[in-house]
């Protein structure tokens, strides 16, 4: 029998990027919040190192055990046997994956919220990708704007505005939606190479800019600015310049004394009563099982765990899994299509130092920034060129057929060229499809005996393929204009498992096709809210975190304002 604990007002499952911001408005409103987190506090001195083996080869910051133990399985279609994805890319800690992410902090475009109707209006109904389940979001960019602004201020985002209330500034992203004000910090400085790429883009007539990041470009609220030492990717920040929720909103919420953190605690089920309301959660800590009662439960365990926990939490009221009486849990899932087009330059580009968020971005070939008539796809990809290169990875470089793989000739080649390779991050507008979904694996189980999440990624996606190839060609054009002598374009494919995983508990007004309503609360269990990119119905051509944090804050804010009716 589970040990029953003192009731809380709100339980938040998972204190990562999403749960970690939602606790703040709740705690400030004086609600008693229990934050139940599978991981624990990380120590910048013991856990974060300028060390490629530690961070990137052995993945010691990120290889926390719960995520690995329940790593999803993957298959292309339902007729195949799903196999383990190998490595789960996310982590367990207070702060979650915001500890070691790249911290690129994008707002989506107004178009992303209305892709279906805008594409239909501009290109006709046949422009909507065949087999996709794309819907307009139940809210507009303008409705989310105030929450984007709150997160940029509370978490701390550096950047340059391109559109303040309709006033366009070419130093920022001229394609962005209108913002109420400038970023709280200027953008991170450029490096010599990214400045050179910026000039090359301008010569092509494009409008490059320095992208936004949840990284301090100057001291911010008592925290240090970035030192550009080159070990940001998959590592935590030892000077506290990367604004994970572990050093921003969570400590702020702890200071209110209304947030209690239960660390190293794994939620195994969400419990419901016969009326279909949730009553609390069961969790395991130190092999003991506890029941934490609550008036409201907010689920924020990342996309794969969000769908899995719902499907595992079966009850009389929800025989097919919690909030799944319409069969929508796990549906409209998709992983973000991303790509690295790399290039070799005939001179030292010196990108050893810096960080992936330091760079230059071009947005003309993303979203609906260009006319798609006759192209056979909607959307596109953002092009981002960045810094930070580690020595093992650099030595393992492609030799482009110019040198053998070993021996003195190879040594000579890497001596000259290891410091001449540029990497990019292309992010594609990706959409949900009927045949891409999550469910529970029929065989593979975690050590507690529960099935892991199973990813079925479906067939060929011509829309995304064409959109990404189009963008890869633009990236090549940009590199060549800047003087590259070799350009490598990988095949345009979707991911098997993703660090940008969307859907499974999509947000929308129609309960027949969506799990949560426009505020993030279940259409079926009225006191259950869901946070994270699992509520997003399309990806945009950029990373998800700022958007999922803005949505999480908005859900928490809605809860505070409607406490009586929601808490019952």
């Amino acid at each position, binding site marked *: 029998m589970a040990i029953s604990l003192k009731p809380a007002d709100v339980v938040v499952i998972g204190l990562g990027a999403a749960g970690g911001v939602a606790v703040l408005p709740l705690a400030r409103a004086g609600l008693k919040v229990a934050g139940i987190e599978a991981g624990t506090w990380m120590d910048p001195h013991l856990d974060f190192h300028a*060390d490629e083996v530690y961070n990137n080869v052995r993945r010691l910051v990120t290889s926390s055990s719960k995520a690995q133990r329940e790593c999803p399985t993957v298959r292309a279609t339902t007729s195949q046997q799903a196999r383990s994805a190998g490595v789960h890319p996310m982590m367990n800690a207070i702060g979650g994956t915001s500890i070691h992410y790249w911290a690129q902090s994008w707002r989506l475009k107004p178009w992303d919220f209305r892709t279906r109707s805008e594409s239909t209006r501009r290109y006709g109904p046949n422009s909507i990708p065949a087999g996709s389940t794309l819907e307009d979001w139940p809210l507009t960019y303008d409705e989310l704007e105030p929450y984007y602004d709150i997160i940029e201020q509370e978490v701390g985002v550096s950047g340059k505005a391109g559109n303040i209330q309709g006033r366009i500034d070419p130093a920022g992203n001229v394609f962005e939606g209108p913002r109420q004000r400038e970023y709280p910090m200027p953008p991170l400085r450029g490096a*010599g190479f990214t400045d050179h790429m910026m000039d090359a883009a301008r010569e092509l007539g494009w409008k490059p800019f320095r992208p936004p990041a949840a990284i301090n470009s100057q001291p911010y609220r008592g925290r240090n600015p970035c030192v550009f030492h080159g070990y940001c990717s998959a590592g935590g920040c030892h000077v506290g310049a990367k604004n994970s929720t572990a050093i921003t909103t969570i400590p702020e919420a702890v200071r209110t004394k209304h947030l209690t953190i239960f660390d190293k605690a794994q939620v195994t089920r969400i419990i419901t009563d016969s009326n279909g309301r949730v009553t609390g959660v069961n969790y395991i800590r130190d092999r003991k099982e506890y029941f934490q009662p609550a008036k409201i439960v907010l689920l924020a365990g990342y996309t794969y765990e969000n769908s899995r926990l719902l499907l595992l939490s079966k009850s009389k009221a929800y025989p097919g899994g919690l909030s799944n009486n319409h069969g929508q849990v796990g549906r409209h899932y998709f992983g973000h299509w991303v790509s690295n087009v790399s290039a070799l330059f005939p*001179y030292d580009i010196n990108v050893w130092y810096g960080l992936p968020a330091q760079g230059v971005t071009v947005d003309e070939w993303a979203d609906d920034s260009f006319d798609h008539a006759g192209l056979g796809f909607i959307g596109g990809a953002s092009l981002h060129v960045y810094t930070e290169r580690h020595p093992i990875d*650099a*030595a393992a470089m492609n030799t482009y057929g110019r040198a053998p793989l070993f021996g003195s000739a190879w040594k000579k080649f890497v*001596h000259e060229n290891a410091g001449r390779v540029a990497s990019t991050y292309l992010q594609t507008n990706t959409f949900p499809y009927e045949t891409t979904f999550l469910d529970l694996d029929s065989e593979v189980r975690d050590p507690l005996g529960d099935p892991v999440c199973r990813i079925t990624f479906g067939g060929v996606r011509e829309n995304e393929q064409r959109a990404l190839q189009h963008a890869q060609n633009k990236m090549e054009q940009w590199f060549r204009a800047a003087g590259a002598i070799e350009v490598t374009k990988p095949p345009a494919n979707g991911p098997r498992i993703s660090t940008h995983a969307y859907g499974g508990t999509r947000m929308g007004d129609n309960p027949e096709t969506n799990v949560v309503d426009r505020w993030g609360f279940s259409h079926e269990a009225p006191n259950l809210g869901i946070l994270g990119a699992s509520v997003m119905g399309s990806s945009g051509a950029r990373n998800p975190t700022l958007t999922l944090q803005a949505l999480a804050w908005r859900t928490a804010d809605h809860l505070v304002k409607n406490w009586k009716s929601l808490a019952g």
Partner: protein
Amino acid sequence: MKTLVAFIDRLIPSDELGPGAVASGAQIYIDRALAGPNASEKDTFVQGLESVDAYAQRVHGAALAELSAEKRDEVLNEMIESPFFNRARILTLEGMFSDPYYGGNKNFAGWDLIRYPGPRPAVAAGDQALNADVKPYRMSAYGIKYGH
């Protein structure tokens, strides 16, 4: 160990560009990795080394370590498509180019080879200039004890 050394000595030989994998201690890195964090691949890796020797014996008449440098290069070229070659190469690169804390990259020979200027506490804008001649900062992330 003898076979491993004979193998990685040809992957990254010592020459006029500086010390190779063996002189830099890449074998120490690999040995420690297989004893600890990479223990799960130890058996496969050791079997791989054994089959290299068996192959060298069969085709060239002696175990790898007994062959001349030229003959060993032939063996490496003949097995360049094999999973073992690929894995041994990756582990050697890890040993040669990792922080010296792990036993390889002695005197920062690996970082000097590829002209990586080393992790430094703070990086100035000038250190990121195009074509900058950045003075190498030669220090392990774990302190002077491991190399400086």
